[in-house]
Structures are given as C-alpha cells and as structure tokens.
C-alpha cells in the first residue's frame, strides 16, 4: 500500500497532478482510490487530494500518520499537513509561495524557509525542495511546475516505469502542451535522484 497526499492552492494544478498519480497507479496494476477536497471558491483556497495504491483499498481517506509521500505544490500548504505524515515519510515541496490574503494585508506572517524546514523536520528528515518553477520555466511553461514535482516524485516510486508516467501525462493534458509537460517531468525526475 502506498499513500500519497497532494496539496496546493486552487488554480495551481493540484487536481491535474492527482489525476495523473491515480491513473499511473491503475496502469501499474494497483487498486486505486482518490479523494479530493476543494474549497468553496473557484480558486484561491486550499486544495488537497489523497491517492492510495494497493492490492485492495477500502477507505478513500488516509488515516492520520499514514501518509507515505506528502507532495506539496506550495510551501505553506505542506506545513498544514505534516501531521498526516508517517514518521520518516517523504516530503517533496515545490518552491512556490502563495501568500494568503491575511498575509498580504499584513495581519499574518508567511513562514520563512528555515521555519518551513524546521516544522517538517520535526516529523521526518526525508525532505526534498524541488525547484519546480525554475525547471518548469526552463521546460517552456511555468504552469507545468506541478508536473516537475511529479517527476521528482517518480524517483521514489520504483514500481512504475518511466514510460507509464509519460503516457498518462500525455493523456491528461491538451495535445499542444504534451511536449512541454514531458520535458517538465523529465527535468523534475533528473533534479532529484535517490
């Protein structure tokens, strides 16, 4: 059984990334369940998606402390979910930083990078910061930052062949963006080897 928790902010492509992850699990022959929570607003709220691969999955929701891979497209969102992580679980954090309204209005403070590391470090040492924006830009489209992070994640999921990931991604994005996303995935994958 592998439990993934994908988190981000509305409009970041969290749900697309979670669709890819779920489909990859199906292709790899697992029973798969995926559960999503999206806020009320069209965009701007927290978004999270839980994906489970295994022989036989019952609950679509993962119990607290049983997430194997916490994949965050935004730093603050990663911090909200650290308690879901299995002790020693793996965290991948994209480099995006989206301040909520209370921060931009000056009422709250967005945690600094050291604070981010300290909070996650309290649960696990297995943390990877993925330069998702710069790699996506290099690949040709910043919006592909979600796929960069998936590329980095793919290094940890040894059960799945590279081709499976690329085929699923090709099936999930509009045709004209397939190449950019393949490129973004490969760059994410190369950014972090185990």
């Amino acid at each position, binding site marked *: 059984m592998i439990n993934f928790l994908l988190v981000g*902010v509305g409009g970041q492509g969290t749900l697309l990334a979670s669709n890819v992850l*779920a*489909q990859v699990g*199906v292709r790899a022959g697992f*029973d*798969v*369940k*995926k*559960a*999503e*929570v999206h*806020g*009320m*607003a*069209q*965009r*701007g*709220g*927290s978004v999270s998606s839980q994906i489970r691969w295994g022989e036989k*999955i*019952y*609950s*679509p*929701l*993962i*119990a*607290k*402390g*049983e997430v194997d891979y916490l994949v965050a497209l935004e730093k*603050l*969102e990663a*911090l*909200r979910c*650290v*308690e879901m992580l299995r*002790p020693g679980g793996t965290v991948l954090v994209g480099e995006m930083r989206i*301040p*909520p*309204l*209370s*921060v*931009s*209005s*000056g009422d*709250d*403070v*967005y*945690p600094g990078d050291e*604070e981010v590391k*300290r*909070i996650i*470090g*309290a*649960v696990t040492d297995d943390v990877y910061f993925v330069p998702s924006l710069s790699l996506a830009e290099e690949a040709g489209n910043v919006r592909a930052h979600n796929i960069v992070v998936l590329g980095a994640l793919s290094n940890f999921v040894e059960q799945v062949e590279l081709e499976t990931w690329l085929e699923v991604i090709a099936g999930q994005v509009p045709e004209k963006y397939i190449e950019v996303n393949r490129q973004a995935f490969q760059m994410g994958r190369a950014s972090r080897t185990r």
Partner: protein
Amino acid sequence: MTRELLSGNEAVARGAYEAGVRVAAAYPGTPSTEILENLAHHREVYSEWSPNEKVALDVVIGAAYAGSRAMAVMKHVGLNVAADAFFYASMTGAEAGLVLVCADDPEMYSSQNEQDNRNYAKFARVPCLEPGDSQEAKDMVGVALDMSEQFDGPVMLRVTTRISHSDTLVELGERMAKEPAAPPEYRIDRAKYVMVPGNARRRHPIIEERVSRVKEFAETFPYNRVEMSPSTGLRRAQPGNSGQGAGLGIVAAGVAYQYAKEVFPEASVLKLGMTYPLPERMIREFSAQVDRLIVVEELDPFIENEIKLMGIAVEGKSILPICGELDPTIVRQRAVEAGLLPPPCPPRSLPPRERGGQVKLPARPPLLCPGCPHRGLFVVTNKLKVVVSGDIGCYTLGFLPPLSALHTCGCMGASIGQAHGVSKAGIAQKHVAVIGDSTFFHTGMPALLNVAYNQSDTVVIIVDNRTTAMTGHQQHPGTGMTLRGEPTLAVEFEPLARAMGIQRVHTVDPYDLKAVEAALRDCLDNPGPAVIVSRRECALLPAARKQWMALAVNEERCNGCGLCFQVGCPAIVKSETLDEKTGRARAWIDPLLCTGCEICAQVCARKAIMFREEMV
C-alpha cells in the same frame, strides 16, 4: 470489460446512461453538480438544469408518469425545496422507474447544514440505497430503477460528498435498449395519479404495504451482505482474549463501511446497501453471532435507531460522533476509547521531535476572486452602511473581512423574504437584499412578487454575473444556453421585475462604483419596492478572461493609507517599501492576479492606482 477510475458522480451519470434513463433533471449544488454535467454528454438521455429542485423533481415525475425511466439529482438541502413533490410521488408511484439521487454533505464542505436525508426516505416511505464506492454508485442506479418499477414508487439513491468526490475503479457496461420505436400512449389512471383526499386515502395503505414488501425484499437484497470474520469462532472459544476486534459485529453502509473495514479488519461486518427499510431477520441473525453490535454511520443514528426499534442491543453514537464526517482516524480513535481496539502500540503517529514555538499557520479561506464583480457592489453597500440580507452563491463570501458586507445567509432565495420582513418590522438603518442571478430564478421570484404585492420598502439587488458561479459555471434561465449546450432564450430580469409590479428598476455595472451608488441612493431614498440589476459577468468566464489586464500602483502617489486593502482583493498586497512620511507600507498589485477591474483604482483617494487607460 473496460475498467475506469470514476468519481461517484461520474459513476452515477454512467449508471443512469446504462440503465436506460431517458429524462434527467437537476439544479446544481455541491457535491452533486457533476452528475448532470457528465450525463449531458450522453445524447440518448434528455438532461436539463431546472430552475430549482422542486421543478426538477416534478419534471422527472412527469417523465416517469409518461412511461420513461427518469432521474432527479440534488444536494441534500435541495430535497427541502423538492419535498412536496417527493411525498406525492411516493403516494402515486409511476409507470416507469423513478430515482432521486440525493447528495448529503457531512462536514458541510459547501452547505449550510448537514441534514441526514435518510430521514426523508423513512418520512416519505421511500426505499433508500447507499453505495459504498463508485462501482456501487453506478450499479445502484439501475438497481434503484428496477426496484422502483417492481414496487411502484420512487427510490432514493443517497450519496455523500466523500462518495461523490472520490474516484474508484468501475467496470463499465452497455446501455440497455430502452428506446421505444414509437412514443408510448399516456396511460390515464385517475385513481392512482389524482391525489385528492379520496384517492389519497385509498393510496396510503398501499404505500404502507409497499414498505413491508420492500422490507421482505431487503432480506435477500444482494447489496445487503454479511462478511463473517474467520476468527469469530476462535474468539468465541477464548472469551478471555482481548481480541483484535474478533467477536465484534459492525453494521455499516456507504463510505462508513470502508472506514470500518480498514479500522476493524478482524470484525464481522453487515454491509447494508439498503438503509431503509432494514432487513430485520438478517440483522437479528447477525447480532446473534457477535458479542457486541456496533453501527458505524455518519451523521444521524439512523440505522442504530431502526435496530433499537427491533429491540436489539446496539451501540453507535455513544461511541462515534453525530457531527461531521467520519474518517479512519476518527473511527480508530473512538474505537480505542471505547475499548473496541487496543491502544496503538507503538503509537501510530510519533510525537513531533520538537514542538517548541508552535506556529500558527495563516489560514487560506475561500474568497472573492480578483476581478469579482460582487466586490464593487459590496464596496458601495459598505460605504452607505446598509444592512444586507444575503443569499447563497459566491457573493456570500462578501461576509468575510475586510468587506464584512453581508449579514445573513440561510437558504436559497431567503434574502428577499427576509428583507421584506425587516422592512415591515422597521429598523433604524437602511437595508437591502442581495441575491444572485441563478438564485433569483431558483426561489427569489415568488419572494419578489410578495414584495410587490404586499408593498414594502425593500431594495432587491440581483447580482447578475451571467452564470451559476459557485458550483462551477452552470447555465441558468438567464444565460441563453442549456445544459446540453444548445442556445435558447435568455430571460431578462428587468422586464420580469416590472411584470411582477416593481416600478423602480435600475441596471448598473458593479465595476462603476459611482453608478452603483447613484442607483442605490435613488432606491433607498424613495419609498416603495425597487430592484437593482447589478450586471457584470463573472471574471472567470472565458470572455471576461480575454479582457484581463493588470493595473499598477504609482509609487510616488501612494502613501500607504490602506483604503485599497479594504476592498479585500487578493491582488493588492502590502509592498516592502514604506512611505517616508507615514511609515506605512505602500500598496503593490500582483500582475499575475490582477484582472484590471479598476474597483481599487476608484476607491483610491490619491489616484495612486492607475486605470487601464493609464497603463501603457
């Protein structure tokens, strides 16, 4: 056989298609909306957005009276609106299968309450099916239709947010050949379908007898099944064994079954696919084989109370919460507290190594998007300090700081009636009703008629963003387009209001703050009913997106007064640079978020935010 990963909602749509549904109707509402959106892709099924859930249910009842399989879809509170139709349909039955898909929202992810609609099933004597995953969600649509035809009455398919919005694997089937060669003759049966008291009195015993027959049917219903624990025998032989759940009997339905299987892998489970009426003999036999009978269910103790009425000892809500959604974490924790499971050893979640300096993370509440036209209206209602009776839609988010501009939200269409009542009661402040375009069509119209008929000084502001925005941009009677993407007439609010007897009617653009203020003052300063149509399409609609253009702050003019922060736009941020004189942070506009609506530019007293024409 094709297997696909489908959400519960996609699966229900597929199930309706496969089961030969010919007419489907709904009003959008989270978590049910995607069902009709997916069904609309199947051209063999006529599907529509009706103005509200009651109309949707009447539509499908008519279709089922006419001999076609039919399905209505709504969120839980939608059935409050459609309840009248639901009850008469139970009394009459129909000529073909009639299913009501009802999506409850435990945890209230997007709702004003978490009512448990299984109570409606019992209330109206309608069988209730509950799928536990997408496969069952698909299959149970056909099962419900078959049952509806076998027992001559509607069947409720009750899903929850977690079923609707979770993806699980589904084996797809083919559509049943249900298309008749020629339209069927309408069968007239006045005694069955004309529910005047005399006929209704004759029907009532038939309905009660139907419940008994369905109850008998439930005893062998394949979706009610017992999964005995292989270790039950062992457990009974060794009563001293503290056990890993052996000897424990769980009754569960829906997604709660999945949590129970995960948390109590050793327990025996009675999985109910039909939660009303219950299979009494099956439950009695199951309870006799286990030491302790526990119902794991979300929200109300519905199954638990039904079992208690049978005189069987059972626990449920004494262990599990009545409020909110369940999940494996909660079920396990409560099971440990109740002594059903040993405490986790080692602890499942190690305490974080270092908890010093607990950080409070900034929240990320839902908010009005950059460029949202509702913002312009609320800036003006705030300026004129009016009390706002609110309604249900994106504009409800105007209640949040810094705008804090909306002061009630109860149910669909409530704002206008409330404002009329406020007016008749009399208050010191000026007040208005704010209601969305789709919500106005839903249940606002009779309330506006009341304002005209009983004459109050009620100002009704219809915030017309040309779509049903909150649920993800669905069409409605004012948009000129149907669910199936076909052009149709667009009903206009202004002539409608006049036809209802409202003489003072304004149309304004909420991006034009002066115009909004002038119209609002005219309505507030003059007696009698008034309507303001505040029209500007949702900034996220494709045509609006094409007009996006980022504005910027002229740093030399901005002194950090903070007026623009009060419009509550995510695109305006405190910058790093401070004004030398005031020491306050100047404003900065995020070019990636700003759409160029110019509301902040109109609010700025120092003309420090550049308008579109100043941006070169």
